[in-house]
């Protein structure tokens, strides 16, 4: 049974943290999430009780670290239901993962005139690496049209795909508009044409059940810090055969098995070839603890509860005349503006009531060409938010016009 009050007790930041004198209402979960006590403890446990290096050394401490580290990989495998744990590569975050895919797979598999498909709703981290890889290979980046609400549909994918399409790189849930892409259908269509599907899961993996075998996606990128885990840790999932056929973007200690002074290098098998250097050990361990915590609550329950919160919030917002909502029917973040108030001024007003929401382009800087507004506000929930918090948020929405209040309180 989902009991949000019980859950909130697990998060130190929800028990005493204040902002501008008000208890923190954290609605910027799209940017990063708060950490439950168990995650904090598992990070501290490594630093305090077994802080050795992994994959190294020939003594029990190092072996102990190794076991924790590899056990973390196995927990990630479970969380996304990958076939093998060797398909899980630890990275420093979604951005790192997406760059590894673009430069490690895209750069070595694309040639002049090949096409990469993305959308204008992609995060910068799923846009800029593809621009660059296109520049280097002579391939081109094309856009799949969004439908009039901002959604990615199978039909539009079908329209955008040509003989030359080699890669489709899209977010499963986008970070501003929050629509869910029909990944399974897209994969089926793509695979019939030999197209590789890269999924930016930064905003989906934390909020719903992920099953990479069911959707059959080829690559998946996501970040630990957006799902109750530490910062500086993320995951690149890839089907094993694709990983084997891929070049690491970082070379060095731990990634090679043999080399000599003539430059002949033998790379290790995945995932190790992609994890050169000392990894973020307590990050991997902390992320695994976060996943165990989430699985214990249940990803289905989390998803359902978040949808309930979103509905509740949207209904109240739609009743306000001074608020414009851009994506009432999606399932992720709520993108909106207070009419006549510059987003940054509005965010400041929310801040003065202890409410954390974000203003700006949200790193999806080309979305303005679709939404036709240059910046928006974004409120994004996680399973520890409550209807009472939303009520407080709505009250501040109503005060929108007095945005300078923030400055004179």
């Amino acid at each position, binding site marked *: 049974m989902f009991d949000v009050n019980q859950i909130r007790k697990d998060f130190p930041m929800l028990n005493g943290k204040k902002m501008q004198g008000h208890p923190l209402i954290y609605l910027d979960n799209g940017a990063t999430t708060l950490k439950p006590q168990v995650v904090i403890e598992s990070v501290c446990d490594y630093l305090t009780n077994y802080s050795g290096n992994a994959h190294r050394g020939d003594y029990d401490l190092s072996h102990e670290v190794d076991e924790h580290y590899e056990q973390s990989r196995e927990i990630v495998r479970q969380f996304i239901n990958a076939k093998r744990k060797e398909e899980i590569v630890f990275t420093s975050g979604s951005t790192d993962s997406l760059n590894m895919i673009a430069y490690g797979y895209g750069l070595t598999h694309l040639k002049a005139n090949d096409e990469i498909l993305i959308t204008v709703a992609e995060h910068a981290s799923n846009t800029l690496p593809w621009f660059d890889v296109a520049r280097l290979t002579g391939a081109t980046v094309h856009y799949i049209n969004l439908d009039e609400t901002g959604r990615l549909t199978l039909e539009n994918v079908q329209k955008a795909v040509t003989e030359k399409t080699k890669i489709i790189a899209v977010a499963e849930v986008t970070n501003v508009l929050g629509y869910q892409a029909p990944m399974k259908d897209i994969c089926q269509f793509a695979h019939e044409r030999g197209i590789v599907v890269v999924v930016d899961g930064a905003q989906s993996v934390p909020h719903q059940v992920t099953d990479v075998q069911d959707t059959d996606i080829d690559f998946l990128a996501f970040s630990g810090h957006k799902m109750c885990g530490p910062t500086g840790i993320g995951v690149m999932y890839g089907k094993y055969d694709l990983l084997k056929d891929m070049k690491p973007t970082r070379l060095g200690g731990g990634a090679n098995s043999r080399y000599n002074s003539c430059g002949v290098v033998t790379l290790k098998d995945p995932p190790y070839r992609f994890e050169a250097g000392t990894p973020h050990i307590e990050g991997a361990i902390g992320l695994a603890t976060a996943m165990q915590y989430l699985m214990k609550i249940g990803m289905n329950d989390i998803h359902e509860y978040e949808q309930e919160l979103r509905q509740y919030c949207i209904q109240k917002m739609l009743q306000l005349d001074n608020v414009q909502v851009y994506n009432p029917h999606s399932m992720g973040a709520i993108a909106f503006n207070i009419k006549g*108030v*510059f*987003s*940054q*001024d509005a965010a*400041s007003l929310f*801040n*003065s009531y202890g409410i954390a929401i974000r*203003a*700006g*382009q949200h790193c999806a800087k080309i979305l303005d060409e679709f939404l036709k507004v*240059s*910046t928006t506000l974004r409120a994004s929930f996680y399973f520890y938010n409550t209807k009472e918090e939303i009520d407080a948020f709505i009250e501040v929405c109503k005060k929108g016009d007095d*945005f*300078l209040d*923030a*400055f*004179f*309180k």
Partner: protein
Amino acid sequence: MHSLNDPQLLREIIMDHYEHPRNRGLVDDDSYLKINMNSQTCIDNLDIQVKFDGDKIEDVRYDGEACAICTSSTSIMSELVKGKTKQEAQKIIDNYMNMIYEKDYDPEILEEAIAFQNTYKQANRIKCATLGWNGLVALMKESEE
């Protein structure tokens, strides 16, 4: 001088300059020095132009996309320094920065700019309240080179 203790008045100053920014709009004139100021951590993005006549600041222009705090602080700045010598302008700038960073300052000299005296309470707005001013500083420096 404005009453420092009347939030209503200070607020009206900001709103007035936000809704009716003075000296806004760029000119197509090579005798102006120009700089693009875009905050790397927020959305504000202004182009600033200053025309120097020897030691004197003859004109200040700006345009772009910015929040109320950024727009009105830049508007007020443009009025304050226009027609002043660089030295005089520098004194105003120093006092303004002192106010923003909670050091001693002379409220008299800042005139309407005292509307931003509370900025430190919302520290994340400092970048907005100083963007235009920092543009001026950069151009004054450039004019010396």
